[in-house]
C-alpha cells in the first residue's frame, strides 16, 4: 500500500484548499468584526451575542430545526416502507425501482423546486384539480410547501441508505427468527428493524443536514414567509455584506449539527447494546 500513498496527495491538497482553509476563514470571521481598516482584526464574541440576544434569530433557528426534524421524520416514515419493498424485490425489478428513486436526482435541484412552484401556485395544477371539488387552498408559500419540497428533494438519500442496510442483511436471520417462534411482525421488530438501524441513522444524517441549512427551498416555496437559518446566512453574506455575522451563524449551525449527530450516534449505540458491531 505504501507505494500508493502519494496518490492521496491531490485529495489532501484539495481538502486543504477547499475545506480546511474556508473553515479557518469562517472561524476567523466569526470572532472578529469588520473594522474600518481592512488589516486590523479585533477578537470579539460580539457576533454570537448579537445572535443569541435577538429573539427573531432564535425564532428562525427554532423554526429551521423544527422544519428539518419534521422533514426527517416524514422521510423516515415514507422512506422505510419504500426501501423495505425495494429490498424484497430482485434483479430487474429492483434496478427499475432504484432507477425511479434516483431519476429525479439527474435534474438540477433548483429546476425541480421551480417545477413544484408551478404545481403548487394558486392557479397551478394542483389547485385546478382541487377547484373541481370546489376547494381553494393556498399551497405555495406555506410551511406545507417548504416541507413538501424538502421531503421531495431529500427522501432518495433516506431510501437508498435504508435499502443498502436492508439488502446487506442475511436472509437466514429472518428464517432463524421465524424458526424460533417469531411471527412476521415480531421478525420485523426484533431482527429486521434493529439490523437496519445503521442505515436509518445515516439516512437521517443525510436528510437532516441539508434540510436544516437549506436556503433556496424555503426561499422559493416559502416565499418571504418562511425565513430559515439558511436564508439568514445567505442574506448576511450576499445582501447585508456582513461576513462576520454570517460566519458566526454558520458556526453556531455547525455546532448544533455536530451535537445532534453525536446524539443520534449515541442513541444508535445504546440500541445496539453499545457493542459497536456496526462501527
Amino acid at each position, binding site marked *: 500500500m505504501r507505494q500508493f500513498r502519494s496518490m492521496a496527495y491531490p485529495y489532501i491538497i484539495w481538502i486543504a484548499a477547499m475545506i480546511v482553509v474556508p473553515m479557518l476563514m469562517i472561524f476567523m470571521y466569526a470572532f472578529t468584526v469588520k473594522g474600518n481598516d481592512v488589516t486590523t482584526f479585533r477578537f470579539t464574541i460580539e457576533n454570537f451575542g448579537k445572535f443569541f440576544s435577538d429573539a427573531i434569530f432564535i425564532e428562525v433557528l427554532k423554526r429551521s430545526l423544527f422544519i428539518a426534524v419534521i422533514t426527517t421524520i416524514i422521510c423516515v416514515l415514507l422512506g422505510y416502507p419504500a426501501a423495505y419493498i425495494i429490498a424484497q424485490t430482485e434483479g430487474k425489478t429492483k434496478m427499475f425501482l432504484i432507477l425511479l428513486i434516483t431519476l429525479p436526482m439527474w435534474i438540477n435541484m433548483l429546476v425541480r423546486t421551480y417545477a413544484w412552484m408551478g404545481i403548487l401556485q394558486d392557479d397551478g395544477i394542483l389547485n385546478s384539480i382541487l377547484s373541481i371539488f370546489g376547494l381553494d387552498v393556498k399551497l405555495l408559500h406555506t410551511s406545507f410547501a417548504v416541507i413538501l419540497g424538502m421531503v421531495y428533494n431529500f427522501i432518495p438519500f433516506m431510501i437508498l441508505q435504508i435499502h443498502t442496510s436492508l439488502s446487506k442483511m442475511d436472509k*437466514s436471520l429472518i428464517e432463524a427468527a421465524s*424458526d424460533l417462534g417469531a411471527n412476521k411482525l415480531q421478525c420485523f421488530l*426484533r431482527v429486521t428493524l434493529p439490523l437496519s438501524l445503521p442505515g436509518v441513522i445515516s439516512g437521517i444524517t443525510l436528510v437532516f443536514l441539508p434540510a436544516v441549512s437549506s436556503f433556496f427551498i424555503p426561499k422559493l416555496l416559502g416565499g418571504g414567509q418562511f425565513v430559515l437559518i439558511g436564508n439568514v446566512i445567505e442574506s448576511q453574506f450576499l445582501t447585508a455584506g456582513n461576513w462576520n455575522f454570517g460566519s458566526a451563524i454558520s458556526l453556531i449551525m455547525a455546532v448544533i449539527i455536530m451535537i445532534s449527530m453525536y446524539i443520534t450516534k449515541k442513541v444508535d449505540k445504546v440500541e445496539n447494546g453499545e457493542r459497536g*458491531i456496526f462501527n
Partner: protein
Amino acid sequence: MRKLIQFKNIVKEFDGQLVLKGVNLDIYENEFVTLLGPSGCGKTTLLRILGGFLNPTEGSVLFDNEEIINVPPYKREINTVFQKYALFPHLNVYDNIAFGLKIKKEPKDIIEKKVMRMLKLVGLEEYSKRSVTEMSGGQQQRVAIARALVNEPMVLLLDEPLGALDLKLRKEMQHELKKIQQEVGITFIYVTHDQEEALTMSDKIVVMNAGEIQQIGTPTDIYNEPVNEFVANFIGESNIIDGVMIKDYEVMFEDKKFECVDFGFDENEKVDIVIRPEDLDIVAKDKGKLKGFVKSVLFKGVHYETIVETKSGTSITVKMTVEDKEPVFNEQANEKMSANDFYLDIEDVKELTEADIIARADAQAWNTETDEWNSITHIEYDIKEENGIYPVTFKTSSGTSITVNMIVADENRVINKEYQEEIYAVNFFKSSDEIKESIALETELKTWANASCWSMEDGNSVEITDVVYDFDPENITPGVYDVTFKTEGYEYKVDTTDEYHEGEEVGLWFNPEDIHIMSKKGSY
C-alpha cells in the same frame, strides 16, 4: 416407538427441475436420523420443507399425525440449527439464546434459568455477555445449538452444522452433538454429505441421491449391506465386482465360485458384489482365493491402500517403428523437407484427403536460412482399397520433393467379450528425437497410435489406463518396438498394515460373510 414425522410422496420442483421425486420417509421419536447424500441430492430441500421454509410441490408432511404443510414455521414445534448458524449479530450470546423464550413471553427468571442451563450444556457459561460476532466458529455453533434447544422442541433440524469447522473440532462436535441428543432425548434430523459423520452419530441413516431415497437403515446395515452401487460407493470405500448368483449361498465372479451368506436371488441372476477393502487380506500367492500382482501402494496414515490387479483389462499391442531419416536437402532453394511412412486403416482409405495425408506423414518443408515453414503445394499418390504399400510424393513450389510409403492394412482392433470392450490402435513411425523430446510420453503414444477403447454395451469411451513399453525413452535407437495399451481390469483395493511392493505376486483372501451381494435390479 411412536412415528413422529411422516413424509408422504414429497415432490419438489424448482423452475421445472425435480429436486425431490416422491420421497416417503417415517421418522420416530428420539431418533438421531441423518439425511446423507452428495450436494444437490435434495437432502437440504427435504429439511427445509420440514422446517416450513419451503412448500412441497406435491405430497404431505404429517407431524404427530397432523398435516403441517400449511403451518407457518413459527408455529411448528421444530427448531433448526442453520448451516451458517444465522446468529443475530445485534444480540449477545445470552439474548440470542433467549430469543425464542422472549417471543413466548416467558417470565424473566424462568428465561434466565433455562438459558443458563443451556449455556452449561454447550459449555459456554462464561460467555453469556459476549458478542456473537467475536466468537470462533465452534463457539458460534454451540450458541446456535443452544438457541434452538432452549425452546424444548420435539425435533431439532441440523443443516450441515459442522461444515465450516476444521477436522479436529468437527470430530469433537460430533461426539458432543451425540451426547447432547442422548441427554435431551429428542429427535435430531441431521443433514450432511460426510459419510463418516453420518456413521458416527446416527441411529438411522437415509441415503439420498438425485432426489430419491436410496437406502434407509442403521449405520451397520448401510455399511455392510448396501443395496446398490451408489450406496456402496458413497458409504466408505468398496470394491464392486460383476458376478452371477449361481444359487443360494453360492456366487461366481472372476470365473470362480465362492461360498457366501446371501440368498433369495434368482438362479443365475446377475449381481454386483461388494467387498470392503478392510475385509480383504493379502496372503501368499498360492494360498489366496484370488491371485494377482500389486499394482500400486499408497500410504494413508494408519494403513496402506494396496491395489491388487487380478486380471488385466482389454489390451492391444502395436508396433512403433523408430526411424531417423535425414531430411531431403535442396541446396539451390535452401530448402529442407521431411516426412515419415505411415500406416493406414483399410476402412479409412475411402475418406482420405490430402490434408489427412500431410498430417499423418507429418510432412513439412522449411527454409534453412530463415527457418520459416514453406507450404507443400503438390501431392502425388495412387491408392487402392486393398492391403499394400503405396508411395506418396510431396512437393513444394521450389521443386523440392520427398517420397514416403503409405501402408494399408486391416483394422487393428481387439474385442474383449468378458468386459464387453473394444479397443483400437494402429502401428506408427516416429523419429527418435520426437520420443526423446516428448514431455508426456504415455499420452503422446496414445495420440500417435490413435488408441481408443469403448464399451460395446453403450458405446461410451473407456479410459486406457495403462501404456506399456519396454524401451528407454531417453536413449532410444532406431528399430521396432512394441507398445501395449490396456484398460482397467479387475482391481481390488486392500487396506493393509504391511507394506507390499509394486509388482509383487500375491494372493487375496476373504471370508464368505465379507461378500455382500447387491441385485442389479437396484434400489430399495
